[in-house]
């Protein structure tokens, strides 16, 4: 369970999070949505401890994450832009991350098969295409089987087949009782996988609930228009 209270974060003069409160219960897929620059990535990075908030508390399963690092053993994170050290091969990178996490999983083999990465294993990461890098990124994220999974724009660069495989994978992980946080701008993808929506606007939570609830609130027949109506209202 994630409990966030009164979270404030400012980058210079730019106030990104303005006293955000959010509680995410265990199990299920939560989509964090919002326009560009609404603070989605900042929120995620705060949970991961990569961004240090000015004030506010973040508790994970009842324990504060401040000044702690071991809690990240329970989190799998897929960064937004898949940038890896260019002179390593895929195989070396996987081995290295396993070594760093001191976790001898062999789930990676299964994932490599799923995303058809066998032929790339010995290639240098610098020579891979954007989509292939994203697949490597997915393997690195899902191979540890942590109870909390955070995916920042997981669909970037993926071809349609891989996208279907990713959706299956996400649903399978959810069935194991994991909590999955996703940010995405692809509304159809969100509508398909998400159980609940968290909508960020100007640094606070504007809406939290299921998709049908959002549709009723905005009086729009479909999801995409419901989101669009929030945005037009707020920018009007």
């Amino acid at each position, binding site marked *: 369970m994630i409990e966030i209270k009164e979270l404030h974060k400012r980058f210079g003069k730019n106030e990104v999070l303005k006293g955000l409160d959010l509680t995410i219960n265990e199990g299920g897929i939560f989509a964090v949505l919002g326009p560009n620059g609404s603070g989605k990535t900042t929120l995620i990075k705060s949970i991961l401890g*990569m961004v240090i908030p000015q004030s506010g508390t973040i508790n994970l399963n009842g324990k504060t994450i401040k000044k702690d690092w071991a809690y990240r053993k329970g989190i799998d994170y897929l960064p937004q832009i898949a940038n*890896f050290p260019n*002179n390593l091969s895929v195989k070396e990178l996987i081995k290295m991350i396993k070594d760093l996490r001191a976790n001898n999983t062999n789930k990676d083999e299964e994932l490599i098969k799923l995303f058809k990465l066998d032929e790339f294993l010995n290639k240098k990461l610098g020579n891979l295409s954007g989509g292939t890098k994203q697949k490597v990124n997915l393997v690195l994220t899902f191979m540890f089987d942590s109870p909390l999974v955070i995916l920042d724009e997981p669909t970037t660069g993926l071809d349609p087949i891989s996208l279907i495989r990713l959706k299956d994978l996400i649903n399978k992980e959810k069935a194991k009782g994991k909590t999955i946080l996703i940010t995405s701008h692809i509304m159809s993808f969100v509508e398909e996988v998400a159980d609940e929506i968290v909508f960020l606007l100007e640094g606070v939570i504007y809406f939290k609930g299921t998709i049908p609830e959002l549709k009723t609130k905005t009086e729009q027949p479909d999801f995409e228009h419901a989101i669009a109506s929030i945005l037009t209202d707020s920018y009007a």
Partner: protein
Amino acid sequence: MLKILKYSFYDLMRSRWSYVYFFFYLLLGVVLLFLNNNLSKAVITLMNVIITLVPLIGTIFGVMYYYNSKEFTELLLAQPIKRSSIFIGQYLGVALSLSMSLILGLGLPFVFYGIFKSNAIWDFTLLLVTGTFLTLIFTALAFNIALSNENKIKGFGYAILLWLFLAVIYDGIFLMSLVFFEDYPLDKFSLIGSMFNPIDLSRILILLKLDISALLGYTGAVFKKFFGTNFGFIVSSVVLTLWVIIPTYFIKRKAGRKDF
């Protein structure tokens, strides 16, 4: 931390630049020995090269490595690893691989020349120790600069400026102020002044050991008069160690507060 250190070290050992640096010192060592045919003289010439070049390479490599491994760092930050371990590990990885290039590159030709049979062995060892100190100091300073500047160009600029200041400008200002205030007793001033520059300090340390009074210069002479050879040696070693510890502490502090 050791794991990070290991990976950074291997990463650099595979990079072309470590070899360029290694072969440069190898060449320098061989050329100096053959041209001079005198170990003590070669050591003095080497000192002059090491004292300006090692800080430059340490600064540039440190800044370059930090910016180049940004992606790797971000990947590590999301893993269950302490922040300070990541940055201190990377810093030591860079500094140790540079020191290794220096020690092996210079050490090999001297070993083949027969340094173990010569009296110059201690002078030579001190030279390598000082080189290692300078590498540790300037790589740490470079990491501090890189951590404080998101902009690569700015980071590089400040790093070069720092080197230029400590290696060249500092001495100029120092000398000018000595001339300007020549009517006053300047012993303490020059003593303290040289403590604030690790390059000056290293020079004094080596010259004290070599005991060449003609080359000591003003600060060196004051140093010697004030502390005597042995005590001066200890004082300058302690200050050099502080020059390593303080910037390293700041790396830890800066890294702990930074957003990624």
